């Protein structure tokens, strides 16, 4: 038996990915179905000198990781819907102050306390629009443990590259189920470290003045550059400003640095998309059922394909528009009332051929559900 083959829950695959990426500070608050992430990290982090803290609530958890990130650590918190709601203000702060961090939301049924132990994908729009004010976000997801591992590493890389919080939207099914995980060797997945300023002591360091390439090198708290960080609109010194030019410039920068790189942030898997007459678009655990349908129907001659999205925000609209051109039917498979469906409809040339196959009762959508809905759309009846 190889040491790097594990049989674990998805939440643990996320932990392995985070540690591989260099996570060394975690703050969190217990909430089903994410709690295993906190439990495993409370055990694993101090073994390598990292820090784990259980805060008094999710607000404090989000704040604590931002504070620790400023001292140079790679940081993460994990929660589920109700806790993710509480984190929104501080999440907006991290967006505004451009502090790298990773937030895991293992989705359960909502709104409110909802279905603590059942699956849902109802937080997709919350990830996009949960914080107030115009802003851009990166939100990623995955459907199996190998991908959960890889996308978690990717989340840390993107957080550092774009100096922004990255949201990982997992769900109860993938979070709790166990399957095989092969932990990659060190170096197999490239890691992006903190970009630190080369400005020497005694020379002015402008914490919020982007370089030519748009990136903002950081300086750790405790270092030689003392500067101000604020959630107010701020100038290149990090000092509050309500100068209209400064305000507009900062907001544009915050939006553009992510939206203008949407194609580079887009992660996805494709299965039999090339000649598909019916294209399924899905993500997270719903994509497992969608893939089951594709693998099952292809040998029977049905031209069904799957576009599995791993980047949900910024929405990979060019990719989706292009892949949706040829198929006669596009069916978005998700466990909510059509949150990704809306984004797909907005992006494609002919939205009338886009349908929703969903399930919102706390149960994982089944391959049979998907087939039945497809048959109805095709006019074949169930």
């Amino acid at each position, binding site marked *: 038996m190889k040491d790097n083959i594990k049989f674990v829950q998805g939440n643990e695959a996320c932990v392995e990915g985070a540690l591989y990426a260099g996570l060394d*500070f975690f*703050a969190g608050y217990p909430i089903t179905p994410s709690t295993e992430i906190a439990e495993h990290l409370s*055990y694993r*982090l*101090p*073994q*390598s*000198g990292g*820090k784990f*803290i259980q*805060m*008094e*609530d999710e*607000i*404090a*958890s989000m*704040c*604590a*990781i*931002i*504070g*620790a*990130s*400023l*001292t*140079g*650590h790679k*940081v993460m918190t994990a929660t589920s819907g109700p806790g993710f709601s509480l984190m929104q*203000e*501080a999440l907006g*702060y991290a967006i505004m102050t451009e502090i790298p961090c990773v937030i895991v939301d293992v989705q359960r049924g909502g709104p409110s306390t909802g279905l603590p132990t059942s699956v849902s994908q109802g937080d997709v729009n919350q990830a996009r629009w949960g914080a107030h004010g115009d802003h851009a976000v990166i939100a990623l997801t995955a459907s199996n443990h190998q991908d959960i591992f890889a996308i978690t590493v990717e989340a840390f890389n993107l957080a550092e590259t774009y100096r922004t919080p990255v949201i990982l939207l997992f769900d109860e099914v993938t979070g709790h189920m166990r399957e095989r995980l092969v932990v990659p060797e060190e170096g197999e997945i490239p890691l992006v470290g903190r970009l630190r300023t080369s400005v020497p002591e005694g020379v002015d360091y402008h914490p919020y003045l982007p370089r030519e390439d748009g990136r903002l090198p950081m300086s*750790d*708290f*405790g*270092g*030689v550059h*003392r*500067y*101000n*960080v*604020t*959630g*107010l609109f701020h100038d290149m*010194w990090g*000092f*509050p400003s309500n100068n209209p030019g400064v305000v507009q410039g900062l907001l544009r920068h915050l939006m553009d640095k992510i939206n203008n790189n949407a194609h580079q942030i887009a992660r996805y898997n494709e299965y039999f998309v090339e000649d598909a007459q019916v294209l399924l678009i899905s993500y997270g655990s719903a994509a497992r059922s969608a893939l089951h349908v594709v693998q099952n129907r292809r040998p029977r001659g049905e031209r069904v394909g799957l576009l599995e999205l791993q980047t949900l925000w910024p929405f990979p609209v060019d990719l989706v528009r292009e892949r949706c051109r040829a198929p006669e039917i596009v069916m978005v498979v998700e466990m909510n009332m059509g949150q990704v469906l809306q984004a797909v409809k907005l992006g494609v040339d002919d939205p009338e051929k886009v349908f929703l196959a969903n399930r919102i009762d706390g149960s994982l959508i089944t391959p049979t559900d998907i087939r039945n809905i497809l048959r109805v759309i095709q006019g074949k009846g169930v």
Partner: protein
Amino acid sequence: MPVKDYIRERFFPHLWCPGCGHGIVMNALIRAIEALGLSKNEIVMVSGIGCSSRISGYLDFHTLHTIHGRALAFATGVKMGLPELNIIVPMGDGDALAIGGNHFIHAARRNIEMTAIIMNNRIYGMTGGQYSPLSGYGTLATTAPYMNIDHAFDVVQLSIAAGATFVARTTTYHVQQMTDCFKKAILHEGFSVVEVLSQCPTYFGRKNKMGSAADMMAFYRDHTTPIGSKKKKENPDLIERGIFVQKDLPEYCRAYDTVIERAKGKGQKG
């Protein structure tokens, strides 16, 4: 180092009203830090939202101006991230004890080393004079036009009950004592709280007919007394000043080092 060297002159003038007590607090804080000979690079000032919280922008330390009520939670991350740093968290009374009350008691309970300064002006100044959890019964505010029926916290008692290992109270009139309290609080290895009664002549003073800023400071002179003084026995309504608690308990970050040691032992065993 002259006091000016601790200030970011670029960002002046400050936004505090004439007569506000917060500038006196900033002055005393600079003098305490100067007297202790601390390097500016090893100080992180974390603040929330409100008049008092703007202090962080004016001082030449690593400064983190965060969101309302959560300064101590951010500060906890900074301190855990780099325990060598000195963390100072100036807060207003609403910031620290209304929206931030939960974080306050939990930071105290953990005994994580940082200095929480509660600049108590008994009012929400930035938003224009609404009652705070420290306004007290019978006071007036823009949201208590008839009278405030909320009772106030006693910050000292609250801090002690929550587990703070250094607790002091002083006022803007007693600047020598304030500087002394700050020095001891910053040196204390644990969670320290310094409550500073700080006048808001613009809102609390005007609403409650307290007179000018100078009148309000005279009020602090006449209505406070050192802890355990004879005057307190004669007049129990006097507010006590001084250091109420100063004790040693395991500090959070140092205790976490023990966790790391234990975890490493376990890791080696497999």
